[in-house]
């Protein structure tokens, strides 16, 4: 079962916004957005996310989105891998570069996590599947 409050529990203004998103995009509102917009007085991580991903930084937006894609790979979140990879690729104007970089970083991580090394058991478990 899913939480009904994330489908029907938003405040009136938020419901209107979600309806507008559905109308303009002609797609269902993604779950991550429904979650982020529910009880922002409690969770409300948007300001932190925006500052980290779009605020002043030595890293470009493409760099940050690429790192987010890598973290998403470690977390095995297919939706987040796709979303951050796409945004990073758009920023660089080169999606293949993003795919190749992610593969290279993961290969390096694999080589470091030698089989049988107990200290890497957690990472080995957390590695994404393809």
């Amino acid at each position: 079962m899913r939480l009904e409050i994330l489908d029907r529990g938003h405040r009136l203004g938020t419901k209107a916004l979600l309806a507008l998103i559905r109308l303009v995009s002609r797609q269902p509102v993604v779950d991550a957005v429904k979650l982020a917009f529910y009880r922002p007085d409690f969770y409300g991580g948007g300001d932190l996310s925006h500052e980290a991903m779009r605020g002043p930084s030595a890293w470009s937006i493409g760099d940050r989105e690429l790192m987010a894609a890598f973290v998403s790979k470690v977390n095995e979140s297919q939706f987040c891998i796709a979303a951050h990879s796409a945004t990073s690729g758009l920023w660089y104007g080169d999606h293949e570069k993003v795919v190749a970089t992610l593969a290279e970083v993961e290969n390096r991580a694999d080589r470091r996590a030698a089989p049988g090394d107990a200290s890497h058991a957690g990472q080995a478990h957390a590695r994404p599947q393809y």
Partner: protein
Amino acid sequence: MTDITQLHRALVARVLDSDGTSPPGLRRAAFDNAGLSEPIRTLIEKVAYRAYSVTDDDIAAVRAAGLTEDQIFEIVVCAAIGQANRQYTSALASVANATGEREGRR
């Protein structure tokens, strides 16, 4: 203190200490992923380490144990932020270690 540090601290304080529908002790336990009993323990463990493996049954079991949807929302958010917080702290320490800087100088 950077804007990110301030926003990060505010977020953690908000989910742990603000008014919520679940007891602060339960939110803290979910944040720490420690000291929980079943079926909440399984749900929180999955959110922290294998979020992709959360099933309808995991949520249903926690509801059957008496938690409301808002309480489940709160503890899941706490669990996710708690794990992210540990990964963030660990990453900062690794960067400080790699660059030879003392931890906390940021």
